[in-house]
C-alpha cells in the first residue's frame, strides 16, 4: 500500500496548521464533566478488539461491554443462562438444546440468531483451550430454527455449561459475518449485542476507546450476580483512557479527571484511601495465583529431584511481603488449584508444612546430579512482583549452591524468550515467574498451565501421563463433588512430579471516585454494566 496524495496532504495539513477537522481531545476539561460519562484507566492498552484472536484480559473487558454470552457464572461460579432463555439435556446426556431469549438484537439492529451463536461457538472453540477440549467431545451443533440450536456430544462431558459460561476467554456471541472470520485473523467490525456499543469514530487507537450505551439492549431480568442476571447500561458513555504512567493516573484520579483506575500500584493505596474523594475496593476476590515455571526440557529441572528441591527454595511469605507489603492483599497457598476455589485441597503438602529449607534444597539438587551449570532465571524488570520474585529466587538458589543467573529484560522480552525450547546457553531459559487469575487456575482444564502433555503444552513443558488421564476424567465428571475428588487425586500426584511452584496468592484493589457505584465482583474482567455516577 502506498500513501496516497490525499493522505499525504491530510498529514501535511495537520503538520502545517494544527487544525485538524476532528478534535483529538483527551482529559477532563475537553471531555466535560458529564455525569453520564465515566472515564476509566484500565490495566493496559487495548491492543486488539477480537477476544478470540487474543487472550489478553483487557480485550475480555472490552468484549464484556460490547458482546453478550450464552451463559454466565454467578457469584458461586455456577453457570446460569444469559442470552439463553431455556435449555435442556436429553436423557442419554448427549444432546443439549438451547433456546435464545426473545428480542435479542445486535447493535446494528439485526436479530441474534442460532446461526450467529453456532458460528461464534465454533470460531471460539478453534482457539480457546477449554473450548477445544469441549469440542473434542462434540459431534455436531445443529441449528433447529432461528432461536434454537443444539450441541450434540459424542461422549458425556460434564462441563458443557461451565465452559460456555466461563469468565476468562469467554464465548462472546458475534454476528455470523464476523464469526466466520478465520480464527487466526482479527475481525474487522465490532458489532455485538452487549450493553454498550463500541464507538469507532470517537476512538483514537492507543489513546482513548469510547463505548456508548446500546439503546437496543434488553437486559435479562433478575439481580446481577457475577456475569449473570441483569446487565443494565446506566452510563451514556464509557471512555477508556490509555494512561501508562501510574503516577499521572493517580494524580488524575485524585483531581477528578478520571473516575476509575483498574490497577493502582499497591504503594499508592494508603494515599488513595486517605482521600475522601476516592474509594478502593477488591473486585476480584479470588485474586491471582503467583507461580514459577521450570523448564523440563533441560538440566537441572528435567530431573524430578531438582524440581522437588525448588519446593524447599521458595518462601511465599517473603515474596509476597516484598511485593505487596500489606498482608491484607496476599496469602500463602499450597493448593495446585488455588485457594478459596471449589477445587482447593491440601493433599500431599508436606513440603509446605516443612517450609523453606535451603540445606534440604541443596541436598536434593546434589541428588539430582546438579553439576554447577548456570541456571537462567528470566527477570522482567518492568513488573514489580515478577522482578522481586526473580531476585529473591536467585539469592535463595545461590544459598542452596546453585549457579543462578538473572536474565533481565522487560516483560515483552520474557514472553519471547520463555517460548524458546533450546538450551539456556542457546537463548533458552530455566526458570520464569508469572501469575494467573485464580478463577482460571482453579480448573484443571481451563488453565493451559495445568496441561502436562510435554512440548505441545504450555511453556515449561511438563509431562505426566497419569495427570493427563485425570484431567480427562475431570471433564467427564458430572458433579462438583466428583470433580473435587479427582482434583485431590491430581494434586497428590502433582506435588510429586512438580508441574510448577507456587509463590503466593494476591488480590489487587481498584480505585474509583466516591460518586461512582455499582461495580460487581467478578474474576477476570471489569464489568461496567450496572455502574453509575451519582
Amino acid at each position: 500500500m502506498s500513501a496516497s496524495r490525499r493522505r499525504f496532504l491530510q498529514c501535511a495539513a495537520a503538520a502545517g496548521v494544527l487544525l485538524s477537522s476532528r478534535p483529538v481531545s483527551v482529559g477532563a476539561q475537553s471531555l466535560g464533566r458529564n455525569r453520564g460519562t465515566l472515564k476509566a484507566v484500565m490495566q493496559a492498552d487495548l491492543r486488539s478488539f477480537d477476544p478470540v484472536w487474543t487472550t489478553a484480559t483487557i480485550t475480555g473487558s472490552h468484549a464484556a461491554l460490547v458482546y453478550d454470552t450464552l451463559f454466565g457464572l454467578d457469584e458461586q461460579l455456577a453457570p446460569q443462562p444469559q442470552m439463553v432463555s431455556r435449555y435442556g439435556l436429553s436423557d442419554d446426556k448427549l444432546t443439549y438444546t438451547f433456546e435464545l431469549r426473545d428480542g435479542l438484537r445486535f447493535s446494528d439492529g439485526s436479530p441474534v440468531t442460532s446461526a450467529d451463536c453456532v458460528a461464534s461457538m465454533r470460531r471460539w472453540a478453534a482457539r480457546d483451550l477449554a473450548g477445544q477440549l469441549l469440542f473434542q467431545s462434540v459431534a455436531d451443533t445443529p441449528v433447529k430454527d432461528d432461536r434454537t440450536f443444539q450441541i450434540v456430544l459424542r461422549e458425556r462431558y460434564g462441563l458443557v455449561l461451565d465452559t460456555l459460561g466461563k469468565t476468562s476467554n469467554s464465548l462472546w456471541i458475534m454476528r455470523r459475518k464476523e464469526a466466520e472470520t478465520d480464527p487466526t485473523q482479527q475481525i474487522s467490525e465490532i458489532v455485538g449485542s452487549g450493553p454498550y456499543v463500541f464507538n469507532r469514530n470517537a476512538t483514537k487507537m492507543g489513546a482513548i476507546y469510547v463505548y456508548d450505551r446500546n439503546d437496543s439492549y434488553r437486559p435479562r431480568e433478575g439481580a446481577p450476580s457475577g456475569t449473570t442476571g441483569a446487565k443494565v447500561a446506566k452510563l451514556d458513555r464509557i471512555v477508556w483512557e490509555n494512561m501508562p504512567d501510574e503516577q499521572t493516573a493517580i494524580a488524575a484520579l485524585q483531581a477528578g479527571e478520571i473516575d476509575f483506575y483498574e490497577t493502582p500500584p499497591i504503594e499508592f493505596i494508603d494515599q488513595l484511601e486517605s482521600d475522601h474523594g476516592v474509594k478502593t475496593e477488591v473486585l476480584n476476590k479470588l485474586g491471582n495465583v503467583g507461580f514459577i515455571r521450570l523448564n523440563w526440557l533441560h538440566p537441572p529441572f528435567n530431573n524430578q529431584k531438582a524440581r522437588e528441591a525448588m519446593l524447599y527454595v521458595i518462601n511465599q511469605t517473603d515474596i509476597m511481603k516484598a511485593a505487596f507489603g500489606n498482608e491484607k492483599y496476599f496469602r500463602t497457598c499450597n493448593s495446585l488449584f488455588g485457594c478459596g476455589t471449589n477445587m482447593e485441597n491440601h493433599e500431599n503438602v508436606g513440603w509446605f508444612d516443612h517450609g523453606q529449607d535451603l540445606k534440604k534444597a541443596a541436598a536434593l539438587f546434589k541428588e539430582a546430579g546438579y553439576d554447577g551449570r548456570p541456571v537462567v532465571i528470566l527477570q522482567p524488570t518492568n513488573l514489580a512482583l515478577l522482578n522481586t520474585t526473580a531476585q529473591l529466587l536467585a539469592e535463595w538458589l545461590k544459598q542452596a549452591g546453585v549457579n543462578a543467573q538473572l536474565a533481565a529484560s522487560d516483560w515483552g522480552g520474557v514472553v519471547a524468550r520463555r517460548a524458546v525450547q533450546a538450551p539456556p546457553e542457546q537463548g533458552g531459559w530455566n526458570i520464569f515467574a508469572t501469575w494467573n487469575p485464580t478463577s482460571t487456575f482453579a480448573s484443571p482444564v481451563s488453565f493451559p498451565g495445568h496441561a502436562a502433555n510435554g512440548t505441545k503444552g504450555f511453556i515449561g513443558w511438563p509431562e505426566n501421563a497419569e495427570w493427563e488421564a485425570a484431567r480427562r476424567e475431570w471433564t467427564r465428571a458430572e458433579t462438583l463433588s466428583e470433580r473435587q475428588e479427582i482434583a485431590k487425586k491430581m494434586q497428590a500426584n502433582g506435588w510429586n512430579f512438580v508441574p510448577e511452584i507456587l509463590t503466593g496468592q494476591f488480590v489487587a484493589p481498584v480505585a474509583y471516585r466516591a460518586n461512582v457505584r455499582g461495580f460487581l465482583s467478578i474474576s477476570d474482567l471489569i464489568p461496567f454494566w450496572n455502574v453509575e455516577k451519582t
Partner: protein
Amino acid sequence: MLRVIVNRIGSIAVVMLLVALMVFSLIHMAPGDPAAIIAGDNATSEQIASIRDRLGLGNPLPLQFLNWIFAASRGDLGVSIFSGVPVFGLICERLEPTLSLTLITIVIALMIAVTAGVLAAANAGSWIDRAVMALSILGFSAPIFVVGYVLIYVFAIQLKWLPVQGYASLSAGILDWLRHLVLPALSLGLAYVALIARITRTAMLDVLAEDYIRTAKAKGVSPDGILIKHALRNAGIPIVTVVGIGVALLIGGVVITESVFNIPGVGRLVVDAISKRDYPIIQGVTLVFSGVYVLINLMVDLSYGLIDPRIGRR
C-alpha cells in the same frame, strides 16, 4: 548555494538509508517477539510459532528489511501488527499533539533562554549572571519526569490551576489548548532553555569583546542597540546551531513528556509500540523522527546564509 542545497539533500537520502538500516537492525536484535505478545500469556510455543509465520516474522531479516525499505520509499510504512491500522495514518493522527507541544516548547524556550542569555552576558559577573547560570545547571540536571511530577503536584493537585494530564485540540479552543500544554511545555523545555541560555551567554560574551562593539560604543550607540542590533545578530549562528541540535533533545524529551502528561502524540505512540514490539510502528516513527531532525538541521545550515550574508556568498 543551489549546489549546496542539492548536495545536502543527496546526503539526507544516504543518512536516512543508514538510519533505516540501524533502526531495523536494532529493533530485531532487541529481545522480544510480537507473536508471543499477541498469543497471550497462556499460549503454547506452537501457537506462537504459527502466529510468527502468519505475520511473516519467520522470513530472513534481509528480506524483511528489503520489503520494508522498498515500501517505505513509496511512502508505505506498513500496518500496525496489533491494530492492523496503517502506520502512516497513525502517525498523522498523533501529529497534532506532538507538534503543538514541540512548537510551544520552542517558542517559550527561545523567549526565556535568549532573554536570560543576553541579560547574563550584559551583566557578566553580576548576581543576574550567576543566577542564570545556576538555573541553567538545574535545568540541565533535573530529569523531565521529575520536573513534570513536581509541576503536576504544585499547579494541578495543590493549586488546581491547570489540568493534570490530557490534550485539548486547537480546534476545540485556543485557551483550553494552551492550558493543557503549559505544564508539559515547561517540563520539556527546561533543559532546552538551559542549553540555549548558556550558548547565548557565551556567544554574546565573545561578540561583546569584538572591536566593532567598542567602535559602536565610541560612536555613542545606546547599550540596548549594541546588545540587540550588533551583538545578538552576530551571536546568532551558534544560537541557531544549538537550537537545531537541541531538537534531538526535544524529540527524546517528547517521548517522556507525552507519557507523563498523557498526551496522545507520536512519542506515546512509539513508547506503546516498543512495549508490545509493534515493529512497523517503531520503524515508521523512528524514520519520521530522524527525517524531521535531518531536515531541521538542513534548515539550520541554510539559515546561516541569512544570518551572515558572507556565508551565502561563499
